[in-house]
């Protein structure tokens, strides 16, 4: 217990050291990359100590360091909450970041700004850890915005490419819509509970909590790419593969789910919010799984797979199982990061080829990557006793045996089988068959900087589920009696998916399809969602605002109503009533006649 708080703060402090080395010139030489990688490794080892201590004693800690400011009755401090969630997430995130940094030493080797890349990755990691360990909403918001900004900088890493800039901006915009929800919740908590501290919020458990919880659900939908705010995640694949592996599969996109998991004491009594998250998660997981079926870019398939798993986590939260959702976050991070690293290896070895229609036959050429890819896909689909099984199977069991929405359950089950379908598609197109790439590329995966990270994550993908499930304290009573058909649901759906997918994929070698069917077009164009929603609503909104603000307010109410109307009335009246014709001689003549008549009348009155 003595070392608990100090090692936790030491972890965070170690990570800031390379940033502070910017004062010296050690950040411009090529030792910087190994330095950052070793720093992250040290932080990982340091964070294991508090995690082990927590698993031993099950005692949470709250570190409240520095009183920053008191604004009338709101006290803002720098406080870290070391509970089950943050203490388990920190080692996992640091392990994965360590592996990804070693991988990017190989992947980004020829980039001239590689030191800046490492600094950005480290900054992202620091802000993510601030988000995870935050005890008050203000610190969480700092971490929230920090990961958003680092995501922007890293997606647009190759900023000379227009698509990358567009994708980075798209990520920022969609995250901003989610931030509205978070800010609304913060404002509600401030005005109704007078605090931003999590302890006080959970203690003052007030009843009508619908508004702040809806705000939190909106924030999670924005950050974790739920349906409606999802297009930024596939577009974010414009960034380099290490960025996709770290941010958009393991760490940043789970921040929204993590937020909802943090607030689970408020959500356990609110049926409405649980139903909303359940249905939103179910729609997300099925929709993105459908979109993943016909994508041709390997990174986009894995991105949609991430989005589908995030929907599954949302479903779990909707089933009132926050601990299962958190376990799925931790286990999903391992095999998803490994899938991205394998795809990075394939892409680099095929000379930057990302289209799976141009890959093939890598089974013999890249044996180690092939192994890792297949094990990763199997773990993703929930193969028994790999990592994914220990979190995905309890989720499906909890879903099928709880008193919940049957339609959401059906969507989740269909999405589970679709997971197997697109995993088979990846394996079939990239690894099996004859090569479809030009034979002049040199394929070499013998670099230890590439092999070691994938090896570590491979061991994690196989064993981490087992180790984590057996180490964590049980938070809910597991269901002991279950009918056999419910127990085997997940396995049956997955096997069904595998069989169907393999048959269809084999068909593609024989038949020639004439035109894409309507459902195939729906899937390839991402459900027409970006096509409709990226042009039409912004155009209508801007048009309406222009009509309201400029035409109605400025031009009409302020200009035309009084000033211009007055001028117009005067003009019309003067032209109507004046009879100046410019006939001077006529006027003079009438004047003469009048004078003469007057003189005659007044001189001769009789």
């Amino acid at each position, binding site marked *: 217990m003595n070392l608990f708080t100090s090692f936790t703060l030491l972890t965070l402090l170690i990570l800031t050291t390379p940033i502070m080395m910017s004062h010296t010139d050690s950040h411009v030489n090529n030792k910087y990359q190994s330095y950052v990688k070793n720093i992250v490794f040290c932080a990982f080892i340091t964070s294991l100590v508090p995690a082990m201590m927590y698993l031993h004693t099950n005692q949470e800690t709250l570190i409240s360091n520095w009183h920053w400011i008191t604004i009338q009755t709101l006290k803002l401090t720098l406080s870290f909450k070391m509970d089950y969630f943050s203490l388990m997430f920190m080692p996992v995130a640091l392990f994965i970041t360590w592996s990804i940094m070693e991988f990017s030493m190989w992947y980004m080797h020829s980039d001239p700004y590689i030191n800046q890349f490492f600094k950005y990755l480290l900054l992202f990691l620091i802000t993510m850890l601030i988000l995870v360990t935050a005890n008050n909403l203000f610190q969480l918001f700092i971490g929230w915005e920090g990961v958003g900004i680092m995501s922007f900088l890293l997606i647009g890493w190759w900023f000379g490419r227009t698509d990358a800039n567009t994708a980075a901006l798209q990520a920022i915009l969609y995250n901003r819509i989610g931030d509205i929800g978070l800010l609304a919740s913060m404002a509600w908590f401030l005005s109704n509970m007078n605090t931003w501290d999590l302890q006080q919020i959970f203690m003052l458990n007030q009843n009508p909590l619908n508004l702040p919880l809806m705000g939190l659900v909106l924030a999670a939908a924005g950050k974790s790419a739920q349906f409606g705010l999802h297009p930024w995640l596939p577009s974010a694949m414009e960034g380099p593969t290490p960025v996709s592996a770290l941010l958009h599969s393991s760490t940043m996109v789970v921040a929204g789910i993590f937020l909802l998991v943090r607030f689970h004491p408020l959500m356990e009594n609110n049926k409405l919010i649980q139903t909303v998250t359940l249905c939103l998660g179910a729609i997300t997981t099925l929709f993105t799984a459908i979109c993943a079926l016909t994508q041709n870019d390997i990174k986009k398939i894995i991105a949609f797979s991430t989005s589908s798993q995030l929907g599954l986590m949302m479903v779990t939260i909707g089933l009132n199982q926050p601990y299962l959702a958190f376990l799925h976050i931790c286990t999903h991070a391992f095999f998803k990061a490994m899938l991205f690293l394998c795809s990075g290896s394939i892409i680099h070895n095929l000379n930057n080829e990302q289209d799976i229609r141009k890959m093939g036959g890598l089974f013999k050429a890249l044996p180690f990557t092939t192994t890792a890819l297949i094990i990763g896909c199997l773990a993703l689909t929930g193969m028994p006793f790999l990592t994914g099984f220990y979190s995905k199977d309890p989720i499906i069991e909890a879903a099928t045996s709880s008193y919940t929405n049957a339609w959401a359950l059906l969507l989740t089950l269909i999405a589970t089988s679709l997971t197997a379908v697109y995993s088979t598609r990846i394996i079939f197109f990239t690894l099996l068959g004859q090569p479809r790439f030009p034979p002049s590329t040199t394929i070499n995966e013998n670099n230890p900087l590439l092999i070691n990270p994938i090896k570590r994550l491979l061991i994690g993908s196989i064993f981490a589920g087992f180790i984590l499930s057996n180490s964590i304290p049980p938070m809910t009573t597991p269901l002991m009696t279950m009918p056999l058909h419910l127990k085997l649901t997940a396995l049956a759906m997955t096997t069904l998916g595998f069989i169907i997918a393999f048959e269809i994929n084999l068909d593609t070698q024989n038949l020639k399809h004439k035109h894409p069917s309507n459902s195939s077009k729906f899937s390839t164009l991402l459900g027409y969602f970006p096509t409709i929603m990226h042009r039409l609503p912004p155009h209508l909104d801007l048009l309406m605002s222009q009509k309201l603000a400029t035409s109605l307010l400025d031009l009409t109410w302020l200009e035309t109503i009084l000033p211009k109307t007055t001028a117009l009335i005067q003009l019309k009246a003067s032209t109507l009533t004046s009879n100046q014709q*410019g006939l001077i001689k006529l006027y003079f003549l009438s004047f003469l006649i009048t004078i003469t008549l007057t003189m005659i009348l007044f001189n001769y009155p009789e």
Partner: protein
Amino acid sequence: MTLIHMNILMAFSMSLMGLLMYRSHLMSALLCLEGMMLSLFVLAALTILSSHFTLANMMPIILLVFAACEAAIGLALLVMVSNTYGTDYVQNLNLLQC
């Protein structure tokens, strides 16, 4: 009234009719205006001298001064019209027509 007064009054009314009934030139109006002024001056001078109305001895001279100013203004207006149109025909002065 006496015959002389009648004579000068007829000269005045001749000039007045000429002012109000001119054909096409603005210059003729200005000339008739001078004629009116001249006849007024002579009438005033005769009446005041023959009635020995010493107090009003200044009136014809002041009248002459003001008439000179007015003639100058009238000529300036004529010159402006002539600058714009080249001639001083009155049918050019129809800008107020709606």
